[in-house]
């Protein structure tokens, strides 16, 4: 019995030695010699088979797609939720639908970068299937991480704004062409420097920026520009994170609650 077991294992070992040797030989052949002979162009993945997220109104799920910069990401919130997280909490109280959230926001993203991101296949798919689209953008265009308003050169700021508005219009266009029905909530800018000197000047710049963005939004159907300027106007320090730029937990809660209050559910969707 013992003897039989041993010869069986020996035979198995010899066989496997050859098998793995073949594997190794294949590695060498594949990685060193055949590389490039079959380029990716010959491979045609079936894009059409990509299942799209069902977006009919009767679906049991509420799809939310979030895009934008660090505000949507939640930078500054110790829980990492951001206004998206609080918004989701609020909505969960109101509706019996299951909420499905995809957050594609990237810290430090400018309007130009967001425009590039939206051209990605997957992001497009998410936008297509979304019932609600949340957006924050422009903060990094304007403030460039806190430095932008130091040199209050109005000509330079006007130029940046013009570029931003063009990007924004293109972005709205792109989203609307992908998704004709979903409501877009564009969360506006606040002035993190409103308690500093020059606050009059910075606030007027942010106000103008907000006004122009809201105007751009109004040119499209179903785009709501959500103001946040007033939320932070009086007690800016209490609502800002220690970097004095991003909101803290309370700040995000304010934004989340305000945005949530704009989202309406029909009778049968309510809890």
């Amino acid at each position, binding site marked *: 019995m013992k003897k039989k077991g041993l010869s069986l294992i020996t035979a198995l070992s010899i066989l496997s030695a050859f098998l*793995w040797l073949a594997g190794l030989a294949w590695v060498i052949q594949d990685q060193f010699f055949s*590389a490039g002979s079959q380029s990716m162009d010959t491979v045609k993945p079936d894009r059409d088979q990509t299942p799209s997220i069902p977006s009919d109104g009767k679906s049991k799920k509420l799809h939310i797609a979030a895009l934008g910069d660090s505000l949507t990401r939640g930078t500054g919130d110790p829980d990492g939720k951001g206004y998206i997280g609080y918004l989701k909490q609020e909505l969960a109280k109101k509706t019996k639908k299951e909420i499905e959230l*995809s957050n594609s926001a990237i810290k430090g993203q400018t309007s130009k970068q967001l425009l590039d991101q939206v051209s990605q296949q997957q992001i497009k798919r998410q936008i297509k299937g979304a019932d609600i689209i949340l957006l924050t953008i422009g903060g990094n265009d304007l403030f460039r991480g806190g430095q932008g308003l130091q040199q209050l050169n109005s000509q330079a700021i006007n130029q940046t704004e013009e570029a931003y508005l063009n990007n924004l219009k293109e972005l709205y266009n792109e989203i609307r062409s992908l998704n004709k029905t979903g409501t877009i909530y564009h969360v506006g800018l606040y002035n993190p420097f409103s308690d500093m000197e020059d606050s009059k000047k910075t606030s007027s710049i942010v106000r103008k920026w907000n006004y122009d963005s809201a105007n751009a939004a109004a040119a499209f159907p179903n785009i709501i520009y959500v103001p946040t300027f007033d939320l932070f106007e009086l007690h800016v320090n209490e609502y800002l994170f220690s970097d004095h730029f991003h909101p803290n937990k309370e700040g995000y809660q304010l934004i989340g609650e305000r945005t949530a209050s704009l989202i309406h559910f029909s009778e049968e969707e309510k809890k």
Partner: protein
Amino acid sequence: MTKLVHNELLKLFRKKRLFVIILIVAALVPLFTYAQYQQAKTTQEKLGNADWRTKLQQEIVDTQNRLSSSRLQDDWRKYLKIRLAQQQYYLDHDINPQAPGAPTFMRVFVENSITLLLPLLVMVAAADLVSSEASGGTIKLLLTRPVKRWKILLSKYIALLLSVSFIVTAVAFLSYTISGVVFGYGGWDMPLLTGFSTKGEELLTDNVHLIPQWQYVLMEFGLVWFVCLVVGTLTFMLSVLLRSTAAVMGIMLAALIAGAILSNMVSSWESAKYLFMVNLALTDYISGMATPIEGMTLGFSLSVLLAWAAGGLIIAFAVFTKRDVY
């Protein structure tokens, strides 16, 4: 000669060491299977979505967010950038690199165990091949037979080669059958990308091509087998040089663990790439991960390992045939 090998194999199996190794693997695989299953479940709950594209997209976004942090170390940033490019490539070509299934589990399992777990198991099997004979005194009985010394050593080495092959096969078999209970046994035909190469922070995709997963797994196991052979050979050499099995194990253990630590911090010490333990992660070349040191390639790592193994063998045979045994 075959009789000698047979004799050596008999000794190996009598010691039950292989049996223990297989038991270890059999105990670990369910653990990893459960861990991976739990991980899949939590991400699914978090996203509320079972679609892998959404998941991969989220991973990409997360990586992008980590990249935008300014406190990132340079080599970690490089690693993230390469992984990001790769994930995007998979997504753009609509291929799910993590589709659940036993073959995928096998692949992930060997990729993670090639640097430490499997070499350790092989080391356990190889450490006392010669040294136990020396410390136990049986070496005298063996050497008084009318057989050339190199033949004796060669028979031991062949027995080692066979048991290493056996261990690798056992790992393949166990990881497939056990994880398949949870993930299902299918997925051999799934296409995967290989041929990525890295240059600095960039991911070169000129040579990228698709291969079915079964070929991918076979290739990875070929590499694992090679790594195990090299580690086995070096342990074998130490086993000839030292009388104490514990010392052999200690040295190999230190070397292997040092390799695992070094790979994370040698990026600026370039000549470290000639150490065998930094070159063990061969599967990373197939999947296209960033190398610990700039300029390392599959060919380079294979040659370094081969040189170490050849050196080890030469020393082992030279010492064993010349040494006085008393």
